């Protein structure tokens, strides 16, 4: 008994040494994610939506483009067309599957483009400070002066409609907030003492950015980008709803919402389906971003 008593004292003395084998940062992030059932659930839904879109040709029972005018505006639960048909008799389930491809593409790619452009501009501005910072940040402020949706509509109007143009327009409106976020976290990191220590080792600015800046800002920026996904999907659908995005024969959730709009008194449930999917997808991205944010917060780790 006395053995176990004295043994208990030992770890107290050697506390700093005793906490051996602490896992790396990303491992602790995953550990915290694993205990967050809400984030896991929305993650699973998103995986489901994305893989449904990817495997649309396999899963879809009909062609997305051809329908029979005889079966137009069938209600939900019609045999053969379980989610109904649209105003030209095309199967809604098929069109939703194919529509997911374009909606996700139009929603996600602007954020990735903005992440690459805005993220690097922000790092350059935040790291170099001085004149480069002023030039980049004032240019960003100019873009900020326009309301984002109007700017996207205006850019689409100038470039003409089409998927690529709507992606470019959305990327353009997401660049300024991306620059701001990455500039602010970079300039916070830049003044930390370990940056001076890295500089004292003779490293070039590029090496310091790669090894010491990126690792400290990537979490914040990724969380922010995830939160933009939901907004981007809604805006992309909005643009095609206005006829500025995807062109009519193609299936896209926003476009489907627009064409089914006329049937809202005939088949309100069918007409609401694309909107429901837009809502669910953007909601899931939002919750996902919240979950990532708390999982990546090291202050909660102790």
């Amino acid at each position, binding site marked *: 008994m006395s053995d176990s008593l004295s043994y208990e004292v030992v770890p107290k003395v050697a506390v*700093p040494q005793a906490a051996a084998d602490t896992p790396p*940062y990303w491992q602790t992030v995953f550990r915290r994610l694993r205990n967050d059932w809400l984030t896991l659930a929305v993650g699973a839904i998103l995986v489901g939506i994305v893989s449904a879109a990817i495997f649309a040709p396999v899963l879809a029972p009909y062609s997305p483009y051809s329908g029979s005018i005889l079966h137009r505006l069938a209600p939900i639960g019609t045999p053969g067309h379980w989610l109904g048909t649209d105003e030209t008799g095309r199967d809604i389930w098929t069109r939703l599957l194919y529509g997911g491809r374009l909606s996700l593409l139009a929603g996600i790619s602007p954020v990735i483009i903005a992440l690459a452009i805005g993220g690097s501009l922000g790092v350059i501005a935040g790291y170099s400070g001085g004149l480069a910072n002023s030039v980049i940040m004032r240019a960003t402020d100019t873009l900020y002066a326009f309301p984002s949706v109007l700017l996207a509509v205006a850019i689409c109007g100038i470039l003409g409609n089409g998927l690529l143009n709507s992606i470019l327009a959305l990327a353009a409106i997401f660049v300024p907030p991306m620059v701001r976020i990455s500039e602010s976290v970079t300039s916070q990191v830049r003044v930390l003492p370990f940056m001076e220590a890295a500089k004292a080792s*003779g490293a*070039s600015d590029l090496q310091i950015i790669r090894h010491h800046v990126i*690792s400290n800002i990537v979490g914040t920026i990724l969380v922010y980008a995830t939160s933009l996904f939901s907004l981007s999907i809604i805006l992309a659908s909005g643009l095609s709803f206005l006829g500025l995005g995807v062109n009519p024969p193609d299936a896209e959730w926003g476009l489907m919402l627009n064409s089914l709009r006329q049937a809202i008194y005939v088949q309100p449930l069918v007409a609401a389906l694309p909107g429901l999917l837009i809502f669910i997808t953007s909601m899931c991205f939002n919750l996902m971003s919240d979950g990532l944010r708390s999982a990546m917060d090291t202050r909660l780790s102790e």
Partner: protein
Amino acid sequence: MRRGMAQTGSASSPAGSGGKRDEAVLRASNLSRRFPVRSGVFGRATDYVRAVEDVSFAAVEGETLAIVGESGCGKSTTGRLLMGLVQPDRGSVQFNGKLVGAPGGIPLKSFRQRVQMVFQDSAGSLNPRLPIVDTIAFGPRVHGVGTVEARTRAEALLSEVGLPPRIFARRYPHELSGGQRQRVNIARALALEPRVIIFDEAVSALDKSVSAQIINLLIKLRSERGLTYIFISHDLAVVEFISDRILVMYLGKVVESGPAADLFSAPWHPYTRALLASRLHADPDRRVREAPTTGDPPNPIHPPPGCRFHPRCSMAEPVCTANEPALQEAGTGSRMVACHAYRAGSGHSMAT
């Protein structure tokens, strides 16, 4: 053997060493730096903080040179000027007689391999997102060592500074104690195999027992690796223990320099005397009863005319307000002091 290396370059050493061969491994010449005080909408510089003015010294191979002084006297800025982390307004740094970062001299990058620095903030100077082994390996990788070899070297250094790599290598800074983190910082400095290490208050933030362990480690490393130390500190007990030579700074200027033993046994400059008198003694018979100096150091934006110490000096005379004393050799040996009382013909009544 390192001395031998230093001598090979002496033939091409630049002028200014006054005929004597330059034995200094690190030499600072007239380093000066003022920081603008900005105000108003456009951030115009309305005034300047004279952080460091005309600081010159040389560190000889293998010695430990301490820079001491109160907070705000410019000792940390001097360390940063030496490393090139802060650009000097005037003055230069020479390594082995070669100008740093000048054409024909030694490039800043290779200088930073030979001269390394350990900072006061042991936690802040480590990247919180990198395992400590990667932080240590970063320097060698920057200088072209392969990833695997850099990591092996980092692990060897971890055990050299007393942190078994098997337990510590993959740890993150927040999982270490202050003393352990400072050991990591020392290992990081050693990773580039420097000849000179600058310690900027490296043990000041640690508690006494940990600080003593780190000091012992530094002494061990110095003799094993033949290192030269620049030891910036306000802790006179530590300085007396570790240093060979001392540089006393006051308001951005060097007021006295000399061998540690001489300086501690017989301080000359009234400021050095006050500084040494303010130490706490373990011996109750030598207890400090009153404050040796009164008041705060004057504002470095508008330093007092003449000798910068005269408003607080007990020996101040009219000449001290009128003329600024130059740092000159005094007495025998290599002692230097900037005080009219030690300069014959200065007009000070105590000058002989």
